[in-house]
């Protein structure tokens, strides 16, 4: 029997009121400002921008405050906000070679031109809890003197290998890339679409997939050829003006991996590449992205499909989005009274049938 039910408005309202009080926490503790989140929890802000697929640090900080620090909930808020915005166009592809780097390291070339620049990294810290941070008001170390001039652009390290033909070339094109926010995804998907999906994929999912390739599920023998973090300019063509203007500067993390390739009938042995590009400072995600990108390229490179999850582009692209995943996962906690009623009736009928059969068999055996 179908029973339409209604109710719970008062309970929902009281729950949301409580959520507001819980968000604020103890009233004798000062309230967190959005600017404090933006400045002091910048890596959380970066993650929300990357997975929310919208670069706006103030908005991401506000979403983190509203979501009480639940970053996937914050990503959800950003994605929902994004759908309310008109699209003004697409930028020219950003020139990461011209990036003003604050960090640039290579695991393959010690003496890379431009040098190894560590930037504000957790690497080489001891990962010991710093109790000094619990005492407020301690000033950080003073900043070094400004440079004489803005940093000169650093050449991409893969460019050096490219000169000798030791690594596959990435030839620029003007192709219009597919956009998974506009058109349904079809498989096999082109690399451009896979890169878009990875750029906004959940960091934990991408990390797990990348780690699986390192442990042997679709192994690609990756080295970090180069990891760089810094500001790039975003240029937009303005039809009314007839030229492109810089509409802003954004921080990006870029990772290029250098991978083994045995060669094929048409290609000499050479290195191949995996690519990661993410909003903000997000190097774990960028490295993960480049490993998974490389693993999914097995078909075009004529490699063996070992059936590893990271090689399966449908598996990766369809399951990496934490908002799609959360939506489907969490809907099962919402009222399913009618579905469950049907399941309950089915189970009762099956049990009754099984019991009747057992009874019939028992009486047959007794006869």
């Amino acid at each position: 029997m179908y029973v339409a039910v209604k109710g719970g408005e008062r309970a929902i309202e009281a729950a949301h009121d409580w959520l507001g009080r819980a968000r604020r926490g103890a009233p004798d503790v000062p309230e967190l400002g959005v600017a404090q989140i933006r400045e002091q929890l910048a890596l959380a802000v970066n993650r929300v921008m990357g997975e929310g697929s919208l670069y706006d640090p103030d908005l991401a900080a506000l979403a983190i405050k509203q979501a009480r620090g639940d970053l996937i909930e914050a990503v959800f808020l950003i994605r929902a906000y994004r759908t309310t915005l008109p699209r003004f166009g697409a930028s020219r592809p950003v020139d990461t070679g011209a990036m003003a780097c604050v960090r640039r390291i290579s695991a393959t070339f010690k003496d890379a031109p431009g040098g190894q620049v560590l930037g504000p990294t957790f690497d080489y810290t001891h990962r010991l809890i710093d109790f000094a941070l619990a005492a407020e008001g301690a000033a950080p170390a003073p900043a070094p003197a400004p440079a004489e001039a803005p940093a000169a652009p650093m050449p991409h390290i893969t460019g050096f290998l490219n000169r000798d033909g030791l690594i596959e070339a990435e030839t620029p094109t003007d192709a219009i890339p597919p956009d998974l926010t506009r058109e349904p995804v079809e498989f096999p998907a082109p690399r451009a679409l896979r890169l878009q999906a990875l750029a906004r994929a959940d960091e934990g999912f991408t990390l797990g997939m990348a780690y699986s390739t390192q442990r042997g599920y679709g192994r690609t023998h990756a080295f970090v050829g180069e990891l760089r973090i810094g500001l790039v300019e975003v240029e937009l063509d303005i039809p009314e003006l007839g030229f492109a203007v810089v509409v802003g500067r954004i921080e990006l993390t870029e990772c290029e991996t250098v991978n083994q390739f045995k060669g094929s009938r048409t290609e000499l042995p050479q290195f191949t590449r995996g690519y990661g590009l993410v909003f903000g400072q997000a190097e774990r995600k960028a490295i993960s992205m480049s490993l998974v990108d490389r693993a999914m390229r097995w078909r075009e490179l004529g490699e063996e499909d070992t059936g590893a999850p990271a090689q399966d582009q449908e598996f990766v692209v369809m399951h990496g989005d934490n908002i799609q995943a959360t939506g489907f996962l969490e809907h099962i906690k919402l009222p399913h009274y009618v579905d469950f009623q049907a399941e309950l009736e089915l189970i009762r009928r099956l049990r009754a049938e099984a019991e009747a059969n057992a009874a019939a068999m028992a009486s047959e055996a007794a006869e």
Partner: protein
Amino acid sequence: MSPTADTAAAEGDRQRWMGLLARAEPARLAALMPTDLPAHDWLRPPETGAVMVRGRAGGTGAPFNLGEMTLTRCALRTAEGTVGMAHVQGRDRAHATRAALIDALMQGPRAAEVRRAVLEPLAEAEAAADRARAGAAAATRVEFFTLMRGED
């Protein structure tokens, strides 16, 4: 200079100041604004939207869609008939309006004054921030030295 080269130079100049205004910190631009601003009508009132930012596979290869950024744009016409336009990062409508007013003023007789009072301080602030970041990065550049070389 030929008329085409002249146009190209003027365009390049406008392109540069529009970029500078777009990248400027909204509060800094607000503090630098001249007080006697011309009256204006909207051709397109400030509107916030998104731009899809593209990257290239491998840094140099085929384009792909990286994700969007917020952008606010507007266009206005001053009482003298000059059209000012702005496309600025973020959601700050007042920032876009100020950038469009400066764009209009830069095309008129007050260009030299506005360049000195607004654009030059903005460019200096941006360069100072870039030099500070470059200095901090340079301090973290690794100087390798050889501890021991084998087989000598």
